[in-house]
């Protein structure tokens, strides 16, 4: 599934200096924030390859942190993020690594707080990003669709039970699991929106361990 848009190319309107290393970083941070949707105490950003070797000069570190704190790509305060009040309450750190098996612009974001979460993503060009792993589960989250992330028990009929509660068209459904009968994941991209009621009904289902509704990115 990838219906591309001209706005992948003639936007975003953003704070410079790099679409993949600054705007992409902000979007990866924002998506991670929305997946976590909890109070974080400690965050470690692990930057790989080109993200590691050129990230400081491109403001990739500032972008990731700014996104994680809820700033959007065209916010002119990204440059000053380390000095802002918003950043003071969070224990954050950066690691710069090399791994040629990973995408040139890859990042792992490890969050500790009320719950722990590890998110892996990559910045694929022109500010476009993909979150491809959450806690080891393979997903495909681009911020272009409202999406549901669900972790559940890998037993028959779970997929149909969950999707039957969704009252809008499903654009994409990706499932993954640790092993048969153990924990499994679903990443559902939606054409429309979900009400809080629908989300709550899925959350209340037996054998559903985690439900996160990640809204599409506005910019």
């Amino acid at each position, binding site marked *: 599934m990838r219906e*591309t*848009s001209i706005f992948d190319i003639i936007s*975003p309107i*953003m*704070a410079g200096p790099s679409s993949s*290393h600054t705007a992409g970083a902000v979007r990866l941070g924002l998506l991670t924030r929305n997946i976590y949707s909890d109070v974080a105490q400690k965050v470690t950003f692990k930057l790989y390859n080109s993200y590691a070797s050129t990230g400081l000069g491109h403001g990739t570190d500032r972008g990731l942190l700014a996104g994680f704190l809820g700033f959007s790509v065209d916010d002119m305060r990204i440059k000053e993020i380390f000095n802002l009040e918003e950043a003071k309450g969070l224990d954050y750190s950066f690691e710069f690594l090399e791994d040629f098996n990973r995408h040139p612009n890859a990042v792992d974001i490890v969050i500790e707080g009320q719950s722990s979460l590890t998110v892996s993503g990559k910045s*694929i060009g*022109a500010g476009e990003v993909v979150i491809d792993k959450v806690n080891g589960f393979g997903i495909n989250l681009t911020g272009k669709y409202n999406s549901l992330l669900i972790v559940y028990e890998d037993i028959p009929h779970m997929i149909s039970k969950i999707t039957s509660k969704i009252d809008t068209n499903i654009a994409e459904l990706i499932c993954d699991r640790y092993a048969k009968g153990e924990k499994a994941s679903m990443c559902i991209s939606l054409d429309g929106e979900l009400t809080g009621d629908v989300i709550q009904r899925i959350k209340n289902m037996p054998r559903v361990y985690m439900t996160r509704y990640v809204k599409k990115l506005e910019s």
Partner: protein
Amino acid sequence: MLHITTFEDLKKICREKDKTIWEISQLRETEVSDRLPSKVREQVKKSIDAMKEAIRTGVKSEEKAISGMCGDDCVRLIRSFEKRPALFGKLYEKIVTYALATSEENLRMGKIVACPTAGSCGIVPSVLVAVSEELELTEPEEINALITAGEVGRIISNKLQPAGAVGGCQAECGLASAMAAAVLTQLRGGTVEQILNSVALALKNLLGLTCDPVCGLVEIPCVKRNPFLAIHAVTASEMALGGVVSKIPPDEVVDAMEQTGKLMSPLLKESSQAGLATTKTAEKLRKKLFPRVLNGE
């Protein structure tokens, strides 16, 4: 739903429906995003407004980047043109200074439009805005031109991600130059064939362009490359409008570009581990700017 993944698809649909590239692209965009044409055009206008704002701010600013390496060349050039006008005239002066102005705004972490990327953000706006001013074109014409640029970039990016780390600078500034060529060819009344020819001609001449930024920053050589490749687009457009045909069709040029990007060493793809980035002067600049990182602390 209009499925357009190649330039051949685009040409065929334009011919079948007797429409221009921007008309087809706008129609496709409304279908993909489920929005009214007016909403799509409104979003394109937002990008154009931001481009103009970056130019207006950029032509006046001499503020340097955090690195202190770049940021004052646009004003320097404008002052020089006042005393010693450019040989190629006012339009040339505008294109070159608008491209510099936008790129310099970018390195200040100012507000720009990634088109397709931030490192290449000066190329399309400089040609679009300068030509529109000089030929006294209307806002709808500007919007139509940027839609076409977006369509050209979108089709290329189906095969090659517009990121220096993936395809080298050919995938960023190269792509932007091809988009700018399409803009200019359309603004001057070129046909679908001529627009696509200008794209192929521009791309062909930039195959293999590496991404070797000094100190890993979008500054050297990126900033000055923007005015160069804006003017490069003009040459491609003039040839295409004059009936010069690219012997290799645009889709095949894109294939060649994709292959070239894959074969290019990772050292030359935005990792700053070769090329200009490892010259003696670049090393000196790096030691000065990032002593901590260099010592592995």
